[in-house]
C-alpha cells in the first residue's frame, strides 16, 4: 500500500510534466492538424535555458531561492517561446498548403537540427544541476516504508495546476483564446470572419513553447541532469499523452499526461525499469488501434 502510494506520487509528478508538454502538441494539432515533431526539442531547449539562467543568476549573486526560481521561470519561458515562434515561422509557415507529409518532414528536420545545435554548442555530456529545492515530508509510514512527498514534487504539481487553471481561463475568456477556439473549429471560416489566422497560429506555438519551457525547468530541478537528447523520448511520450487524452482536447492532454506518468511509474515500480518506455509506446499503439480519438477527443470526419 505504501509502495503503491509512493509510485502514485512519483507518477503524478511525472505526469504533470508530460501534461504540460502534451498541451503544446494538442493545441497545434487542433488548429493546423500537424504533429509538431520538434516540440520535444523545444522542451529540451527550455531545460537548457533554465540551467543556464540558474548559472547566470548564481554569477550575479541572486541567492534567495524563491526569487531565483521566479526569475528563471520567466526568462526560460520568454526565451523558449521565441524558439517556438521562430520554428513555426521558418519551418512550418511556408509549408501551409503544401503536400500532406511536408510539414511533418520539415518538423523532423527541425528536430534533428535543434538537437545537434544544442549538442554542438553546449556539448554532448550530461549537464548536472545542483539540487535547489530540497527536503520534503513523510505522508505516512507503514511497515518501515515511508511515503515521501518532497517539496519539489509538491511544487511541480502546484505549478502545473496553477498553469492549467490559468491557461484554461485564458482560452475560455480572452479574445485570443476565442480566436484560437474559432480556428480550431474551422480555420477558413475564422479567416473569413476577420481572425488573423497567422497570428493565432504563431501565438499557439508561443504558448505551447512557454508551457514546454516550464516542463523543461521542472525536469531540470527534478532529475538534476539534462542532456541534448531528452527531448526525443519526452516528446514521444507527451505526444502519446495527447493522443491518449484525445488530440485537440486540452483537458484530454492533461489527463493523458497524468495517465502516461502513472503508467510509467507503476510499470517501473512493479514490472521492469528497462521496459518502461516500451510500455508507453505499447499504450500509444493500443490507443491508436482501438480508440484513435482518445479518451476525450471527438471523432474526426474525413472530408473530400
Amino acid at each position, binding site marked *: 500500500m505504501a509502495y503503491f502510494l509512493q509510485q502514485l506520487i512519483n507518477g503524478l509528478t511525472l505526469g504533470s510534466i508530460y501534461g504540460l508538454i502534451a498541451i503544446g502538441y494538442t493545441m497545434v494539432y487542433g488548429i493546423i492538424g500537424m504533429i509538431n515533431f520538434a516540440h520535444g526539442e523545444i522542451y529540451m531547449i527550455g531545460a537548457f535555458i533554465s540551467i543556464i539562467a540558474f548559472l547566470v543568476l548564481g554569477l550575479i549573486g541572486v541567492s534567495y531561492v524563491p526569487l531565483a526560481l521566479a526569475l528563471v521561470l520567466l526568462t526560460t519561458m520568454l526565451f523558449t517561446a521565441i524558439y517556438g515562434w521562430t520554428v513555426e515561422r521558418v519551418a512550418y509557415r511556408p509549408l501551409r498548403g503544401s503536400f500532406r507529409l511536408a510539414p511533418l518532414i520539415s518538423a*523532423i528536420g527541425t528536430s534533428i*537540427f535543434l538537437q545537434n545545435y544544442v549538442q554542438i554548442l553546449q556539448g554532448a555530456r550530461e549537464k548536472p544541476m545542483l539540487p535547489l529545492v530540497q527536503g520534503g515530508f513523510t505522508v505516512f509510514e507503514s511497515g518501515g516504508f515511508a511515503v515521501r512527498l518532497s517539496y519539489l514534487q509538491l511544487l511541480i504539481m502546484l505549478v502545473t495546476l496553477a498553469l492549467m487553471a490559468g491557461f484554461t481561463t485564458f482560452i475560455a475568456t480572452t479574445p485570443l483564446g476565442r480566436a484560437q477556439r474559432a480556428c480550431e473549429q474551422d480555420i477558413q471560416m475564422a479567416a473569413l470572419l476577420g481572425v488573423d489566422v497567422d497570428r493565432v497560429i504563431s501565438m499557439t506555438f508561443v504558448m505551447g513553447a512557454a508551457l514546454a519551457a516550464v516542463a523543461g525547468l521542472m525536469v531540470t530541478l527534478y532529475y538534476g541532469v539534462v542532456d541534448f537528447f531528452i527531448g526525443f523520448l519526452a516528446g514521444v511520450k507527451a505526444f502519446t499523452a495527447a493522443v491518449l487524452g484525445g488530440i485537440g482536447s486540452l483537458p484530454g492532454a492533461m489527463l493523458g499526461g497524468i495517465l502516461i506518468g502513472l503508467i510509467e511509474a507503476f510499470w517501473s515500480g512493479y514490472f*521492469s525499469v528497462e521496459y518502461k518506455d516500451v510500455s508507453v509506446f505499447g499504450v500509444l499503439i493500443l490507443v491508436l488501434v482501438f480508440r484513435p480519438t482518445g479518451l476525450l477527443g471527438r471523432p474526426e470526419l474525413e472530408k473530400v
Partner: protein
Amino acid sequence: MTAASGLAVEKEALATLDWAALLKDAVLAALVATLLALPLVGFQTYDIGGGALGIRTHFDWVATAAAAVFAGRLALHLRQRLRRGGERHGETLFARLGAWGNRRALPITLVGIAFAVALPLLPFSSRYLIDLGTTVLIYVMLGWGLNVVVGLAGLLDLGYVAFYAVGAYTFALLARDLGLTFWQALPFSGLVAASFGVILGLPVLRLRGDYLAIVTLGFGEIIRIVLLNWSPVTGGPNGISDIPRPSFFGLPFARSAPEGATTFHQFFGLEFSPAQRVTYIYFVILALALVTNLFTSRLRTLPIGRAWEALREDEVACRALGINPTNVKLSAFGIGAMLGGFAGCFFATRQGFISPESFTFIESATILAIVVLGGMGSQMGVVLAAILLVTLPEFGRAFAEFRMLIFGAAMVAIMVWRPRGLLAHREPSLRLRARRSAAR
C-alpha cells in the same frame, strides 16, 4: 503572366524598392536572431569538476549570428523583390538537372552501373574507397527500400531501421545458433522482416499518415529497447560478434582454410589478400542493390505499384474505385520491410558484429533524409543523396561534426523550396496515348 509584362514588373520593382521597410525587416530578423542566440550561443556551460558547471560567454558569436541573419535576410528579400516578375519558380538548377536525368535516364543509369562495377578495378581505387562504396550502397539499398513505402505509397515510416535491425539480428542468430551461412540466411532475414512489417502494419495502417509516422517511430524504439535488454538472446548492449562472412559459392575468404575446405585464393590459385574479401563484399551489395532497384521499378509499373501511387495521391478516390487501401498499404509496407531486412542481413555479415547501437532513430532519420532529399519516388535521387550524405563526413572533422545539423537544416530547406525533393521530376508512369493539349 507574359514575358513582356514580367520584364516591366522587374524594372518597376527595382525603381520602387522600399528600402526603409526592407531594412526594418532585416533589423527585426537580426533582433530575433540575437534573442535566440543569447541564451544558448552566448553562454556556454562546461564541466568544472565535482558535479558542478561553469559558464563562459561568447557574445561575439551572438553578434556574428545577428549580423549574418541581417545580411542574409536582406539579400534574400532583395533577390525576391527583384525576381518577383520573373516567375522562375521551378526553373532552378536542380529542376533542370532532374528533368535532364529523366530524359536521359537510360544512358545515365548504364554509365552509373558501369562505373559502380568498375570501381574496384580502377587505378585510383583503394580499400578505403571500396569500403566507402559499400557503405554508400547499403544506404542506397535502404533508400530504395524505404522509397517503396514513403515515395511510392506515401506512408511516412519513421521506424524503418527496425526492419533493418530485424534482418541483421535474424542472420546473426541463425548463424550463431544454427550455423547458417549468409546466403542461406538471406531469404529468412527478408522473410522475418517482412512478417514484422505485416504484423505491425495490420493494425496501424488504417491510421492517418501522421499517426502512422509516430507509431512506426515507437515501434522502432520498441525493437531497439528489446534488443538492448533481452540479453540472453540478443547479447544486450554487447551485441553479437563473430558473424560469419559471406563465402563465394562455398569458398571462404581466409588465409588458411578450415579443415576439408578450399579457400577462395587457393581455388583460383591467387595470392591471399584481404582486399579480395572487401571487393567481394562490395560486389555482393552492388548486386543486392541492383536487384532491389530492378524489383522496385518493375513493381512500379505493375497494378500494385500503380495502386500505391494512386493511393498516395488520393485515398478517398481510390476507395471509391474499389481499391482496398489497407491491403495495398500493407503490401508496400511488407515489401519495404523485406528489402530493409535484406540490407540488414548484409550489414551484419559485412560488419561481423552488430549491437543495438547501430539501429537508433538517427539511422531511420538518415535513411528518410536520403529519400526525401533525393526526391520522393526518384530512384536516381536516392543514389545522389546517399553519396552526398555518406561522403560528407569523410571530407573532414568539421563536416562530420556538423553532418546531422546540416541534415536537419537541409530537410527543412528542401521542404520549403522544393517539397518534392532535389531531383523530383514527376513523370506519370502511365499516360493516355493522345495528350490533349487543349485541356491545358
